[in-house]
Structure formats: structure tokens, C-alpha cells
């Protein structure tokens, strides 16, 4: 406990510096409202429901887009590693889309699906598919040949080998790919909501900023940033258990 406190102490110090700098007006108060004001605004937003409605909206979009990308990406990646024809067909497409900055797709998703949930979910789905597919593919491909041969010699059919050997073997890389996808989903969500949305975190940040409620704006910015951080930590905790056999 003490160790964790010591480790994160710099953040606490920064928070204190923030508060003091704002209180003593070292920086203009509009640009940097005191931390205490930000916290107060946060509570107000929570109480009047604004934070909650927009959170639900954003989290729903991430959940749907990310969830779909994980399912489709994992299946696709493993299929590509296992069946050469699938690889030959799909790999070039992945290679072409890999270097495309997914944020560049924001206007296109809007053209197709408007300003609502659909465009965000599509964007997150397309963007997050890439790391998941690549992770699944690399993980499945790295299946040690000797493990596969051992299973076959013990009488396992090709499909059983896929399920019993290749998929578990692919887990570490796949889970790593999903971790990247989780972080990416937040980035794509916030980017698109800042630019083209009527609900959600990004929208709320934008409208609060436009309306001059800066401490409330800070509150939401920090909330979203923290959620992204928390999602990563929680993900690590969950996957640590699944990968316990590795060490």
C-alpha cells in the first residue's frame, strides 16, 4: 500500500501545484480553473444527469464497436493463419488498410451513417479490427509446430487441433492485440465525438467548452481520460488470470 502511494505521489504533487497555481492566479483562471472548482463541477454534472446520459451513450458505442471487432477480428485472424486461401485473399486487404489513419475515416462514417451512434460504432469497429486481427494472426501462426504434431499424433483431428492447441497458443498475442484495441476504441470514440456528435463525452466536452463552462469541461476531460486508463488496468487484471499458465 505504501509503495503504491509513493509511486503515484508525483501525480498528487501535480494536483497540488495545479490547485495552487490556479488559486494564486499564476495562470489565468479561465484557462486553468482551480482543481477544486473542477471537482465541484464534476459533482454537479453527475447530479443533474448530464454526465450519466452522455457516459451511457459513449460506453455503449465503445462496447458495441469493440465487441464486434474482437469477435470478427479474432475469427478472421485465426482463419487467416490456419487456411492459406483465406490468408492469400484477406492479407493484402489488411496490409492496405493497416497504414490508413483510422481517424481519417471519421467524415466518411458520418456520410454513411450520420451523426448518431452508427457512425461511431462503425468507426470503432473498423479501427479496432486491425490490431485484433493482426494479434490473432500472429498468435495463431506462432503455434509451435511440435505442439501441433504432438496433438495430431495423439489422434486429434485438424479441427480439434485448431481448438485445443492453436487457439490457446494464440491467446497471448491476441490478448495483446485486444489491449491495443481497447485503447484505440477510446481514442476513436473521443476523436469522432469531438468533431461530429450530438451525444457522448466528446460532444459534452465540446458544448461545455463552447458555452464557457470551463471547469465542467475539465471535469469531463479528466473523466474520459481516467476511464481510458481504468479500462486498460482492468483489462490487464482480467487477462493476467487467463494467462496464468504462461509463467
Amino acid at each position: 500500500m505504501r509503495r503504491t502511494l509513493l509511486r503515484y505521489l508525483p501525480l498528487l504533487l501535480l494536483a497540488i501545484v495545479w490547485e495552487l497555481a490556479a488559486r494564486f492566479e499564476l495562470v489565468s483562471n479561465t484557462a486553468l480553473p482551480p482543481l477544486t472548482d473542477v471537482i465541484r463541477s464534476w459533482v454537479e454534472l453527475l447530479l443533474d444527469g448530464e454526465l450519466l446520459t452522455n457516459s451511457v451513450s459513449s460506453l455503449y458505442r465503445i462496447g458495441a464497436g469493440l465487441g464486434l471487432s474482437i469477435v470478427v477480428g479474432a475469427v478472421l485472424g485465426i482463419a487467416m493463419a490456419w487456411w492459406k486461401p483465406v490468408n492469400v485473399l484477406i492479407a493484402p486487404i489488411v496490409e492496405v488498410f493497416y497504414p490508413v489513419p483510422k481517424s481519417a475515416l471519421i467524415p466518411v462514417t458520418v456520410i454513411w451513417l450520420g451523426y448518431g451512434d452508427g457512425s461511431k460504432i462503425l468507426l470503432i469497429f473498423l479501427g479496432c479490427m486491425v490490431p485484433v486481427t493482426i494479434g490473432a494472426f500472429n498468435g495463431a501462426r506462432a503455434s509451435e509446430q511440435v505442439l501441433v504434431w504432438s496433438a495430431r499424433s495423439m489422434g486429434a483431428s485438424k479441427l480439434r487441433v485448431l481448438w485445443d492447441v492453436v487457439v490457446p497458443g494464440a491467446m497471448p498475442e491476441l490478448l495483446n492485440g485486444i489491449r491495443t484495441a481497447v485503447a484505440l476504441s477510446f481514442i476513436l470514440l473521443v476523436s469522432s465525438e469531438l468533431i461530429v456528435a450530438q451525444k457522448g463525452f466528446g460532444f459534452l466536452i465540446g458544448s461545455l467548452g463552447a458555452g464557457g463552462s470551463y471547469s465542467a469541461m475539465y471535469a469531463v476531460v479528466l473523466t474520459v481520460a481516467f476511464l481510458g486508463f481504468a479500462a486498460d488496468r482492468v483489462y490487464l487484471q482480467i487477462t493476467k488470470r487467463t494467462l496464468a499458465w504462461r509463467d
Partner: protein
Amino acid sequence: MAGLEQTTAGRDGLPEKAARLAVIILWAGARVFSIVVLLAAWEILARSGTFTPYQLPALSAVLERIWSDAVNGDLAINTALTLYRALAGFAICAVVGVAIGMAMSRNVIADWFFDPIVSVGFPMPKIAFLPVIVLWLGVYDTAKITMIVFDAIFPVIAATVLAIKGVERELIWSARNMGASKRELLHQVILPAASPQIMTGLQVALPLSLIVAVVAEMLMGGYGLGGAMMTAARFANSTSVFAGIVEIAVVGYVLIKAMALTRRRLLLWHPEANAPATA
């Protein structure tokens, strides 16, 4: 390895050799095949009327738009602006990021101070801070470049710290054994040994710089590839939007390739480039 290929030589007749060649060509062709099919499908689908020209402009129309943008100079201006912002941000990230990473591995206080910042900041969607940066710095280049640095510096710092920590103990011991001083050790041994991994961090940071530049431009409008795309979207000019995607993709691709080539030249010595000789 040459020996293995010889095992059936002299036994193969012409048909067997031709068959092998055909298979190689088929696999190579199949790779290009998917892309060609995709592009052809795009064009056909666009013309078929299943989607409106607004939803899916024809590939030919998009290419034509890119061409006209190139000819009238718009493409050059927008690309140059976006590249300027992305590269300026990247350069700052590279210098400051490596410096912080180095400081963290040599100085306990620097490590204590930056470690939680990097570890907590890394998985955060830092783009959420864009409105805050705009509040502080306005809507011009300074704000955009600051956002880029704020976002892309993290992978550089993380890679530098890991790279330096990962330098083989025996390399350092060998150098000290041969009389290297602390300064010589850092410059002559630790940094070169860490360079592959630091380069990897830079290779992550560069495309990231481009993406952030584009997003910042989309939010703030004006010139630049992102800004131009948003303007086109607002005017319901979907052909230009699609053209923009292709343009940004090409820029991204060129940057990645350039980095890969630079890596290969700087790291000629790395095992990834060589196969061992025999003697």
C-alpha cells in the same frame, strides 16, 4: 541451404518445373488479385446504382478529384501543412522523449517523477485534452503541434526506458572491463545498444503524429488534409472526402516506408538484417 534444392535436380522434367513456377506465380498473383478485385468491385458497385453517388462515389471520380487537386496546387498546400505539423511535433517528441527516457534511467528522481505520469498517461485517450490545449493556445499551429507532442511522446519515452534497461549486462561489463568511463559507456555502448528499440518507439510515434495532426485539423478547420476533409464533408462533397482518405493514406504509407528504410540503413548491423555465415 543450396544443397537441399539439389536433391531432386536432374530428375525433374519440364512439366514438373513448369508446375512449380505456375504455383509461385499464382500465389503472387493472388495477392495482387484481392486488391484489384476490391478496386474493381468499388467501381462497379458505385456505378450500379445500389448506392447514391453521395454514399459511394466512383473510384474513377475520386481519382479524378485527386488529380485536379494536385494540378491546382491544393493537394500540395494541404499535404505540406499537415506534414509540417506532424513532422515538427514528431521531431520534438523524438528529442525530448529520448532525453526524458535517458534521464529516467540514470536519475532516480527523474524516474520517480515521470514513471507514474507515463504509466498513467499512456493508455489515456489524450486527444480528449485537445479542447484544453485549444483553450490555452488558440487554434493555430502551436496548439496542433503541442497536441501532437503530448500524444506521441509517450511511446518514445516508454521505448527509450525499456531499451536502456534491456541493454545486456555483459555488454556493459565488457566495456567497463576495457576501461570505458561512465560517459563513454553511455554514448559508446548503452545508446547504440538501445537504438533498435528506441527506433521502434519512433516508428510508432511517427504515424501517431500524423493521425493527431489530422484529427486536430478536423476539429479546428482551416487548411491541411484534415481541415480540407471536414470542409468537404460540411459541403456534402463526398468525392472530396473519399479523395482525402486516399491522400492521407498515401502520406501515411510513405512515412511508414521512409521510417522502415531509415531503420534498415541505420541498423545494418542488426541480426534482423543478416543471416549468419558459416566458417
